[in-house]
């Protein structure tokens, strides 16, 4: 199984981790954003059913990006899976409880006629979109500042801190970036998939969300210039067995800008974030809804990629014990597993993308109130 060397496989899986997270943020991101927007852009029950049914047939498939993300991190980056999810324990609990509300919310909301029943599910669907959007952002923010964990010699991890320790100013700002981004993306989707007046309200909200995203993303970028970044000190082999205790790590103010200075082409990531959001705002103003959604998706990809590129090769630095930090070179699974997983990904990702595209093609067109109430399968 040595068709690819260990270092290359690790870089490939770092890229694939990015692809998965971007896939999640672009695909499941818009229906999380639609959840956030549901109580605001749709007022009557008929309008709300249009919004729910605009994502109804596709959100379940989109959410698999999250499930797959979890599984792929488990398989390719087991230490990240172990440290991040147990370290951010109560935050993950809130995310899970919020996400659990979504399948049942979409399915059960319109199964009973009562207005109070439906209004309750509408607000639960709002929470099911808002809380994960916020907390995933806060988690990325905490990864950028480092998390307080350390390993003992048997690689058992100890995390020092609780839920409140995650809620410091910079991570909260990143949380707001995430909320603005997914609100924009959900709005751009609704602008494309619904009719007036819902589409108009979604378009306006998405426009403002895009502007706020540009501002917050800029503030976060400026702020992170002053943050302590992390760097591996000295030579460190990129192809040895994963053991995060084998390296020395130093902290440098502004260290997260080092990759951009060393490799200016990586600036493409933040440029895509700013450019995509600007283009999305412009297109939404001009009612070019198709372009608006594509531009919004590009912005999402750019913003997510920016976090990854800034930290490379770090995945989850430790603020408590920097040498315990998890990096691309010492937190991956074995060479054989990375290779097996790569084979699976190369075979199945194109298949998944192909049938997903087929399903979206079948479901193309705007969703109308008349159409929703004519079909007994509607949510």
């Amino acid at each position, binding site marked *: 199984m040595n068709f690819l060397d260990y270092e290359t496989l690790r870089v490939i899986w770092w890229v694939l981790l990015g692809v998965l997270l971007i896939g999640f943020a672009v695909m499941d991101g818009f229906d999380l954003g639609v959840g956030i927007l549901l109580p605001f852009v749709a007022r009557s029950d008929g309008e709300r059913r249009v919004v729910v049914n605009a994502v109804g047939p596709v959100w*379940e498939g989109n959410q698999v990006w999250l499930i797959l993300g979890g599984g792929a991190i488990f398989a390719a980056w087991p230490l990240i899976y172990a440290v991040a999810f147990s370290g951010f324990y109560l935050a993950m609990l809130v995310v899970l*409880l919020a996400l*659990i509300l979504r399948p*049942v919310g979409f399915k059960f909301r319109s199964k009973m006629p009562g207005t109070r029943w439906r209004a309750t599910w509408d607000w639960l669907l709002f929470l099911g979109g808002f809380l994960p959007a916020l907390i995933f952002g806060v988690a990325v923010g905490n990864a950028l500042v480092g998390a307080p964990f350390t390993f003992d010699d048997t690689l058992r991890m100890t995390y020092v801190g609780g839920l409140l320790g995650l809620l410091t100013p910079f991570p909260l700002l990143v949380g707001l970036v995430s909320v603005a981004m997914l609100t924009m993306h959900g709005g751009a989707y609704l602008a494309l998939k619904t009719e007036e007046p819902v589409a108009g309200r979604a378009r306006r909200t998405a426009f403002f969300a895009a502007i706020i995203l540009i501002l917050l993303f800029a503030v976060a970028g400026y702020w992170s210039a002053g943050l302590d970044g992390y760097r591996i000190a000295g030579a460190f082999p990129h192809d040895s067995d994963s053991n995060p205790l084998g390296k020395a790590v130093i902290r440098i103010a502004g260290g997260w800008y080092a990759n951009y200075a060393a490799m200016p082409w990586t600036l493409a990531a933040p440029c895509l974030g700013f450019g995509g959001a600007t283009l999305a705002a412009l297109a939404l103003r001009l009612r070019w809804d198709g372009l608006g959604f594509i531009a919004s998706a590009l912005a999402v990809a750019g913003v997510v990629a920016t976090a990854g590129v800034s930290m490379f090769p770090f995945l989850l630095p430790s603020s408590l014990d920097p040498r315990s930090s998890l990096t691309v070179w010492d937190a991956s699974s*074995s060479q054989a597993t990375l290779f097996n997983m790569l084979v699976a990904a190369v075979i199945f990702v194109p298949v*998944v993308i192909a049938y997903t595209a087929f399903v979206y093609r079948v479901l193309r067109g705007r969703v109308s109130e008349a159409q929703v109430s004519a079909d007994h399968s509607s949510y």
Partner: protein
Amino acid sequence: MIDPTAVDLSRLQFALTAMYHFLFVPLTLGLSVLLAIMESVYVMTGRRVWRDMTQYWGMLFGINFAMGVATGLTMEFQFGTNWAYYSHYVGDIFGTPLAIEGLMAFFLEATFVGLFFFGWSRLSKVSHLATTWLVALGTNLSALWILVANGWMQNPVGAAFNPRSMRMEVTSFYDVLFNPVAQAKFVHTVSAGYVTGAIFVMAVSAWFLLCGRNAAFAKRSMTVAASFGLASALSVVVLGDESGYTASENQKMKVAAIEAMWETEPAPASFTVFGIPDLAADQTNYAVRIPWVLGLIATRSLDTPVPGIRNLVADNADRIKSGMIAYGALAKLRINPGDDDARAAFAAHVQDLGYGLLLKRYTDKVTDANAEQIQEAAWDTVPNVLPLFWSFRIMVAIGFFFIAFFAFSFWLSAKRRLDRHRWFLRLALLALPLPWISAELGWFVAENGRQPWTIDGVLPTFLSVSSVGQASVAVSLIGFVLLYSLLAIVEVFLMIKYIRLGPEGALGAPAEATAQ
């Protein structure tokens, strides 16, 4: 040292969330295939009633499916949140089937399930049928990969410990995938799901007939369910027997505990149908035994003895001593990877490293354990005899009931007498909870019988937990119990409402909102 309360709470949370999740999974497995069969008949005959059947059972499928998806999310992330050391220790092997499950199976199922509900007017008959079959295929493949992962916990093949990364790493993905335990469990589990779907359709249809409504719809549904159920019930029992055989090869202690068999049974071993295990005296009273049967189930022979608990404990004490040597050598290797003596000692004893880890409950250093601690750790390898003994017997009894029930239903449907006997319809309705009871008991036997290990012989359960405090685990446990209880009430309420509405009510125009 590890906080034993946090371990117990994490185990309780995992058991509750997994068993709750598995209330929805078997019905999804069974109904998805039944829907595909019903719609196939619709496409072949063009008769409207078969389309109504697909849509009505599909609507009930949808309510159940939403709960399965919601509770499955918890399962995907709980290994990381509560079992972090497990995730690190075996993620290299265990993560792969979970990731491939998402990629190959759940994507398929979840993408096409939307089209199943929303595609009736947008797809041709044949394309929609293909969609339904793809949902069923995705569902079943999903079970395959999950059981490959679970099978590896029971029988950890194709992996070796790497001292430098302090974890198990894959040596043969082929062995992990074609693990005989996983294959037997997969067919046993999906067949149990098919039985669940068949009983569900039988029970609801019987209720329609008892109420004197939807006779044509109900009888057709029962005909499909009876034949599908009979094949599945036979498969469940036969493959359950195969599971017993594969388990006895690598999990002798589990078999001995299920049998409450304290001493080694000379060949051919007899099977205890009934008895009262006495834990204080380590013996089973009032036992009713059938000669030869256990020998045949467990060894497929008449001349191989089946080892008893006391003998296995003695064997395990030896493995613990060998594990202590492995652990001591590992500690030396971690400090000095070039230590050749330690490397040789480690290689000679690494297969018992997991047994050495059992001592971590008594001494953090492992190598300094005394004879008493070794003996205690050896007895720790015995799972809970009493609940295993009874759970297994109830599960098997229900399994045989299913064969009899479906055989009779099949005969009735062949004679076109499904609606003749009210006692039969009442029996079908009363049978509704049985597949869930037997499935939950089956998982209890499989997972509790694996204790004290998460990975059999490799990693003890108490070492597998995260370093999360007991207060946090208590909070999450309470959170899950509250939310799951509320959702259970909503789910049962909606199910009953849509069953009462019946096909004509549920497939009519959807209710518009009304003020309350």
